């Protein structure tokens, strides 16, 4: 029964495959960022590409989708999100001839009992804590002392964004000798709706000046609130300034560019198989967008200065605190709403 499909595969198929995590291809977050990298590279080089949505969010379904992509002709499969760790752990040996680009994770078993990365897998982590740090630093430096953080869900990447944000605000607060407060909450949802808007409106009504929202599409609702309250938003992942006037800056991580780069390397024969990379400031993997015009006092120069300190290691951002409450802060009060 297996002969026939193979014929079809020879004839056509999609050479670059991407398997989405929960959420869709336009989630304003890791799926979309990675996908845009795939599209950019494939279009530029005349390659075929396709994405696959697993039927459910389970390791088995992820593997199934990966298999489907491979049988559909994929020579390289991009899997964005830490949920894929277990699936890639198995897929890397099941399909040794296929290359995998795994984002936000490195392969391990679902119960974290075994870690192993084969030469056909390139794992990319991002230093979200540095990106969040820069955003928090810039906001306080710009004169804001009352901030908010809304995370989509307490997954590692989002947690790192938030922890970095707090530390950045703390450093600026210390430098300026001001007291900063931060409301800190996880929405447990990535979709825009009234609940998030009301939540944000509430925060704004009690003086919060800017909310850093690392929650995909839910950010749109926070922006709607900011417009209504005439307050600010800090975007996430990509430069979101085009979505709303209220977005003063965005804590970016180079999803798109890193995927594009990884694909370029692969086709150039330099695939970083077996490597677990963390893209941080030193390689330009994370940062704020170049436009600082929506700040009042924070400038490009201020940014460059703090960025350099991160690069040099003069300033170190803690990325693996157990809880935001464990971060050593003195000038910053974090009010955690709900659990982390």
């Amino acid at each position, binding site marked *: 029964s297996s002969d026939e499909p193979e014929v079809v595969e020879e004839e056509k198929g999609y050479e670059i495959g991407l398997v989405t995590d929960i959420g869709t291809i336009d989630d304003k977050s890791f799926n979309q960022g990675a996908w845009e990298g795939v599209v950019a590279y494939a279009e530029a080089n005349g390659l075929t590409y396709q994405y696959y949505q697993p039927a459910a969010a389970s390791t088995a379904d992820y593997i199934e989708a990966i298999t489907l992509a491979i049988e559909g002709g994929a020579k390289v499969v991009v899997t964005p999100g830490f949920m894929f760790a277990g699936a890639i752990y198995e897929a890397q040996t099941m399909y040794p001839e296929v290359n995998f680009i795994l984002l936000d994770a490195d392969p391990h078993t679902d119960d974290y009992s075994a870690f192993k990365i084969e030469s056909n897998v390139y794992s990319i982590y991002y230093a979200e804590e540095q990106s969040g740090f820069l955003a928090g630093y810039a906001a306080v430096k710009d004169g804001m002392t009352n901030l908010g953080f809304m995370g989509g869900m307490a997954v590692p990447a989002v947690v790192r964004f938030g922890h970095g944000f707090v530390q950045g605000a703390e450093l600026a607060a210390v430098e300026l000798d001001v007291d900063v407060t931060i409301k800190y909450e996880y929405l447990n949802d990535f979709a825009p709706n*009234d*609940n*998030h808007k*009301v939540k944000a*409106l509430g925060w704004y009504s009690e003086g919060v000046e800017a909310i850093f929202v690392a929650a995909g*599409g839910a950010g749109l609702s926070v922006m709607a609130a900011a417009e209504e309250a005439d307050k600010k938003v800090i975007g996430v992942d990509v430069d979101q300034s085009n979505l709303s006037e209220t977005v003063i800056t965005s804590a970016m991580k180079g999803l798109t560019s890193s995927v594009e780069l990884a694909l370029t390397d692969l086709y150039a024969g330099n695939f970083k198989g077996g490597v677990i990379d963390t893209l941080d400031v030193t390689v330009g993997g994370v940062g704020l967008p170049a436009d600082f015009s929506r700040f009042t006092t924070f400038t490009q120069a201020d940014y460059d200065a703090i960025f350099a300190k991160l690069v040099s290691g003069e300033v170190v951002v803690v990325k693996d605190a157990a809880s935001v409450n464990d971060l050593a802060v003195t000038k910053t009060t974090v009010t955690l*709403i*709900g659990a982390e």
Partner: protein
Amino acid sequence: MDTLLFLLKNMFPYMIPLTVVALGGMFSERSGIVNIALEGIMVFGASIGIFFMYFFPDLLPPQMMLIAALIVALISGAIFSLLHAYASVNLKANQVISGTALNLFATSFHVFVARIVTPNGVEGVKFNNVYRIPTVPFFSDIPILGPILFTNTYITTFIGFGILFISSYVLFKTRFGLRLRACGEHPQAADSVGINVNRMRYIGVLISGALAGMGGLILIVPSTVEYTGVVSGYGFLALAVLIFGQWRPSKIILAAAFFGLMQTISNSSGLNFFMSLGIPKYFYQIVPYVATLIVLTFTSKKSAAPKAAGEPYDPGKR
């Protein structure tokens, strides 16, 4: 005080769409057709309304544009609901069947079309959200009501109240309303006095489709700038509000307000006042649902459900 004002103001985005959609459901159920497709019709109406905004962003000045889009949503909701009417009235099918089918269809339909019409083939359809009215001259200065109703408001709020008043007038003071109610209570009786039960039921479902379609857009517009074909269960909540509101406009608005207020409280756990109470967030999260259940426990003893709702009309049946 500020907290209270905040709560009162922000219950409107929940209350208005829930009211409008529940009123829609009321017309359908009062005519004898249970409409669990409210969710799907909301999705569909909002979808067509948003596509309209997407394709003709600058057709009209903002407020006119919103009204035009609402009309588009209303018409498309009504047309979509015809499918439900046909199955429930002509085919005498179990009314859950077509309701479920419509719910399933609407979101996939939106995604299907969105993938075709958007440049990158994505689900989210962007629209230009320029419909907020920051202040209304004079009205905004009225104490209490000004900030609650007339600042940062949307015309949809007033449309919602308009629909409420019209609905209760139509239902209780007109010939149409009397006949519609008769069809939902005792269709055989209505038939025996020469009322065309099937036609009334069609009209009931059509009104529900129109209001649900419009309600979908009313829900979506203030909360985002991009629509992905979901209304997050609000159609089902509207169904709950309809039951909670005992199928009467005056109680539906109260039920919607109650639910809206609870929902606002639920999302206000981060406000200083509520933080100071020291109650875990979990309790705020479940408050709208638990409070509704508790209130229902004490108010449901007498059910006011239209007697014949849910049963296909069969002239021979006693």
